[in-house]
């Protein structure tokens, strides 16, 4: 399972990376915004994308739209992990095709629950 973690704060990337490792996902890679992430996704054969929303360069929502618009990446599961809690934004992410939405600050339990839920649905 190859996972890309996209967040502009290195500490948050590190926290997510550690939590994922505890859940048994050791093959994780990092990018600091959508612009860096997109080419990595296009060539890297990733199985899962965890992305923040608010980032300089290219935001998470734009990255999500770009992923869904790319025929090669369209079915990639995407989990949004963000401090954005506006109703309007969550609906927007849902409409753009997000697979899960976790708000910061979050617990290891929440992250695990959302990730396993996504994989269940992808498998089923």
């Amino acid at each position, binding site marked *: 399972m190859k996972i890309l973690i996209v967040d502009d704060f290195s*500490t948050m990337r590190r*926290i997510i990376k550690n939590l994922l490792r505890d859940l048994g996902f050791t093959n994780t890679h990092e990018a600091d915004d959508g612009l860096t992430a997109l080419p990595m996704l296009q060539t890297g054969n990733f199985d899962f994308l965890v992305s923040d929303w608010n980032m300089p360069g290219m935001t998470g929502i734009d990255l999500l739209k770009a992923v869904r618009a790319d025929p090669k990446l369209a079915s990639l599961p995407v989990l949004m992990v963000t401090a*954005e809690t*506006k109703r309007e*934004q969550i609906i927007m992410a849902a409409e753009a095709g997000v697979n899960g939405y976790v708000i*910061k600050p979050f617990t290891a339990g929440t992250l695990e629950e959302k990730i396993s839920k996504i994989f269940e649905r992808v498998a089923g």
Partner: protein
Amino acid sequence: MEQTIVESERLIQARALVASLEAGNDAEATRIIMAFPENVEKDLFQEVGRLTRELHEAIIGFAMDDKVVQAVQHEIPDAAERLAYVIELTENAANTTLKAVENSMPVAEELLHVSDKLAAEWGRFRGRKMELADFRSLSDDIGAFLTLSNGHSKILNKNLSEVLLAQGYQDLSGQIIRRVITLINEVEEKLVRLVAISGSTRVQKVQKEEVIMEGPAVPNIEQGDLLNNQDDVDDLLSSLGF
């Protein structure tokens, strides 16, 4: 007050008009009539003039105010600097904490792993299911584990102390942010006075972006329709068919 002065002036003019008409003084009557609209305009111009002067004085006062000058020249750039430092402090603290945690996890895992193995052997010994040779090796393993756990406990202790000390950022960043809040309040007070004089009727409409990112929810700040916790987010998403 001003209203009654204006009215009495008009009354005087009206009386003068009637008097001049009764006296057959056409020239005087015409002059009085012609003066009416001019008066209204004059009042308007006087009012605009007064407002302009007050605004001008307020701006001059604003610019001359020592506190404002101080704020603009030093404290606002300082505040930006201070806030940047808060980011640095919190980042350092997070990195220190993360490093200590990352270093501790394998240590705790090794203790768990070795103690699990020893517990199984110990169970065999207590159940009298162990040969003498195996007991000798168990005895050696227990000795080695005591040394290992001693060293590992010291490492964990050191890492936990680092985590503890790293929390000092909260105190420092709190103090810095409180100073910046005080400055913002002072400048806001002055600006409110200025806005009150100039009138706030011409509030420009801000072009609304498609979705404005709110960032982290901050207590006691109006941020629109925010959801409070993960449960609310889950409820919303399940209502959307997730």
